[in-house]
């Protein structure tokens, strides 16, 4: 049976937003309820039918993590990969390190995601639109209680997420702290996606379903070091670039000396047959203009916003961690 995608759990984080707690223990092993934090995403994967996963941990704690998880009774087969804790590797760097193990599309989960959601809507969106990236977002849950310890001076990091209302395409992703006063929006984006909903209070679940070409692209562009901070916004921005169209056979001119300057769009090229099929089909994902399906884009990012009642929290700040434990 051909595997559709591989799951990667990023558990090598240092817990920079909760240093008081992670000083003694690795972040992924902090207990929530009576299970270590890492148990929750693995259980989520298991519940959704995924049989094996690659867990990335820091080299020093690898044996400890292995021991803890063996005890916790999960049936999912785990392959542990260690990364050196001394260097400051970002999430994208880690993914690049794993790229030789990754043979198919990849589902990336962070170790601090706690949710009981069924992931099949996310998978379906990925399969239906052959999306390059699908991200998952939750509505803010109402966990209100005072956090112990000194009052954190940090305001919760919030993201500005822009979605095309009708097609759920992710057209804008940035952090609120990137902007001082005004948020510049490209008019091109607005002309293309007529109805854009901007959300400012969604939680990014840091669960991404990526196609294999994204990993290949990461190999090529070594500057990107975090997924959420750099890679995903970069891909989202690329959607509105002019190059985001299918390449025809006549366009290819290899002798341009352009080997080094390959763009993201080159990696995302799909099969000619797929394009033919799309051209001949009547399906169009949007209405209101005469553009072809997906506006002819080959780089497509989608976002799935979980329904309001769905519970999903990331335990990456002290406040969130504490709230989770009390619930």
């Amino acid at each position, binding site marked *: 049976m051909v595997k559709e995608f591989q799951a990667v759990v990023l558990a090598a984080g240092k817990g920079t937003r909760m240093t008081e707690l992670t000083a003694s223990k690795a972040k992924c092993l902090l207990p929530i309820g009576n299970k270590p934090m890492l148990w929750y995403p693995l259980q989520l994967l298991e519940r959704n039918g995924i049989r094996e996963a690659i867990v990335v941990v820091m080299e020093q704690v690898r044996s400890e993590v292995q021991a803890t998880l063996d005890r916790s009774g999960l049936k999912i087969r785990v392959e542990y990969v260690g990364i050196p804790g001394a260097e400051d590797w970002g999430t994208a760097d880690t993914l690049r390190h794993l790229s030789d193990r990754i043979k198919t599309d990849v589902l990336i989960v962070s170790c601090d995601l706690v949710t009981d959601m069924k992931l099949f809507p996310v998978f379906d969106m990925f399969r239906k639109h052959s999306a390059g990236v699908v991200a998952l977002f939750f509505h803010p849950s109402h966990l209100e209680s005072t956090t112990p310890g000194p009052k954190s001076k940090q305001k919760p990091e919030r993201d500005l997420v822009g979605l095309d209302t009708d097609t759920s395409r992710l057209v804008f992703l940035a952090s609120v702290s990137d902007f*001082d006063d*005004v948020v*510049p929006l490209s008019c*091109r984006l607005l002309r293309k996606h007529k109805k854009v909903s*901007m*959300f400012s209070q969604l939680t990014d679940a840091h669960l991404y379903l990526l196609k294999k070409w994204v990993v290949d692209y990461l190999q090529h562009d070594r500057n990107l070091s975090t997924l959420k901070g750099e890679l995903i916004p970069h891909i989202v921005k690329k959607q509105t670039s*002019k190059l985001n169209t299918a390449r025809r056979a006549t366009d290819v001119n290899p002798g341009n*000396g352009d080997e080094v300057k390959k763009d993201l769009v080159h990696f995302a090229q799909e099969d000619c047959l797929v394009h033919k099929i799309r051209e001949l089909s009547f399906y169009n994902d949007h209405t*209101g*203009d005469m553009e072809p399906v997906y506006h002819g884009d080959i780089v497509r990012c989608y976002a799935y916003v979980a329904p309001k009642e769905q519970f999903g929290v990331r335990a990456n700040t002290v406040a969130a961690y504490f709230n989770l434990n009390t619930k």
Partner: protein
Amino acid sequence: MSRKATKVTKTSSETLKKEDVIQAVVIVDSFKGEFHPITDSIPLALIPVVNKPLLDYTLKCLSLSSVQEVFLFCCSHADLIKQHIKQNKWNDESSTMSVTVFVNETCRSLGDVMRDLDAKAIIRSDFILVSGNMIANLNLLPILQRHKEIQKTDKGAVMTMVYKEAGVGKKSRKLEHETILAVDSSSGRVLAHHKLKPRSESKLDIPLETYVDRPRVELRHNLQDTYVSICSAAVPPLFSDNFDFETRDDFVRGLLLNEEILASTIYWYMLNKSYYAAHVNNWQKYQAVSHDVIYRWIHPFVPDTPFSWEKEPYMFLRRNVYKQHSVTLGKGCILEEDTVVAEKTNIGEHTYISGSVIGENCSIGKNVIICNSYIWDNVVIGDGCNINNSVIAHKSELGENVILDIGNELKFNKGCIIGPDVLLPSDCKLEASIVVANHQLKKDVDRDEEYKFKKISDKAYILEITKSGDKSDEEDDGQQLHGFWLETSIIETDSESEDEISEGSVKSDRLSPVPEDTHLFFTEVVDSLTRGYEDKLHPDNLILEINSSRYAYNVSVREVNYFVNYVRNSEAQKDCLQALEDMATSVDILREGLIKLLHLLYEQEILTEDNIMEWYKHGDKSEMAINLRNQVAPFIRWLEEADEESDSE
């Protein structure tokens, strides 16, 4: 029995409380003069669309929405309007609404009208604000209801604007400015309102606060403004307080910018897809709306439902042809499709009419071809004429064999607009987009335009407008007195420069993986250099500026080697040469000048011969570099000779 009677009268008097009367204000002028010079003799509101004056459509729509009091504001030709209202019995006892006409010759904009309205103090509560050239079939009552509900929750709600959803391809929307509206999804409050100039402006800035406190903000680009608004009684005083509000858009923008001061908010209402609302404010719109009427989009305002029972009804024939009974058609005459012919018109033999509207009492000769034209009442057209994409206003006469706008079929078929009372002689050929007026019109000082008149004959002058000085990009192509554009080109949604910006930034990101600070530094230095070049500043000042920027951005000296003044050692020179080479491969002009540039640098002893020779010898093997080397070869040869000379000395 008498008790019952008194009870009945009591309830009826209660229901007739003053505040419940629905009032509407109709602004009859558009103040922009697109229909000039026809509007010199006919007011805008009486221009017929499919043989009915625009004002009738507006008033009918209002009466269907149970409006009870209508105030018409006219600024020109008020007597014609008054006459029209009397004629059509709008103000009769039998009509359900009362129409009052106010005249004010000095009003020059919507703002002036509102200020006048405020002075008159006739508005008691919420009123409906429309313009006299509106054609719509929407029901205003639910919108009014919603406005009142919003007012209960938000005391500062001042206006509800009505928008219609229209995709980019829709004809009547292409002709307007593109508007982007940012609204709060839950409350329907308008947060930002921007008009885009077509094909320009790469970025739109929206303040961060609009997003932060609201869970969901929708940015809409697919809307068409219907210019129908429900205003509260606070609107005219707001206009009086702010003298610079001239148009409704000024008002909206002013309110959004000064929210705290004015404490007023604006909401929006999206019109149900089954309703139609349009605003005829230029010729292209006229054409689009006529087309929509003929195609029955604006039911019940279709040509075959009469507004008054005194007029003859139209027959609705196949292929969208409407004809009244008393029309006489000659032998062999063809009414092809999408045609409306009004009463008492004679059409000669073998005439071909397609896609046109012909008014009443016209007399059309034999062998005439009329396509996509609008002919108003009492027009005489001679035999053998060929009329395309034109408007011929009342009482005009065309001689025989007149050809209007042959033009090429492909692109803009700009038509001719022939004013009222014009006599075109026989065998006259008119090219596209010429407006013919009856007589020499006086220069209208207000409009900032100059007219030149070319006489064709008595009673026919071609109007040419020369652009005035300060016409900025505000003036769209459509604002000028052009005729019809049957096929507008698809608006290119991306401009050249925008692509270059986005691609350029991508390229620079890839080429130089310099940290952000250095990047900023570069841009700043480039800015100060270009400024310095333009202002011809002393280079020392520039050096100071660059130095301070350098410290500000913590940039190493190495990075700055790209600039001539800083090139001191041989390492630096190599960097400089490399940079020149890189630049030369991308910028053509520099390539030619490279040789001169090298010469100059050598003369000024900034680059030594050794370094230049080394660079020349150890260059890249790529094609570009080889080309470059060839171009620089003469200079190198000169250098070698000079070397030998100095050695030999």
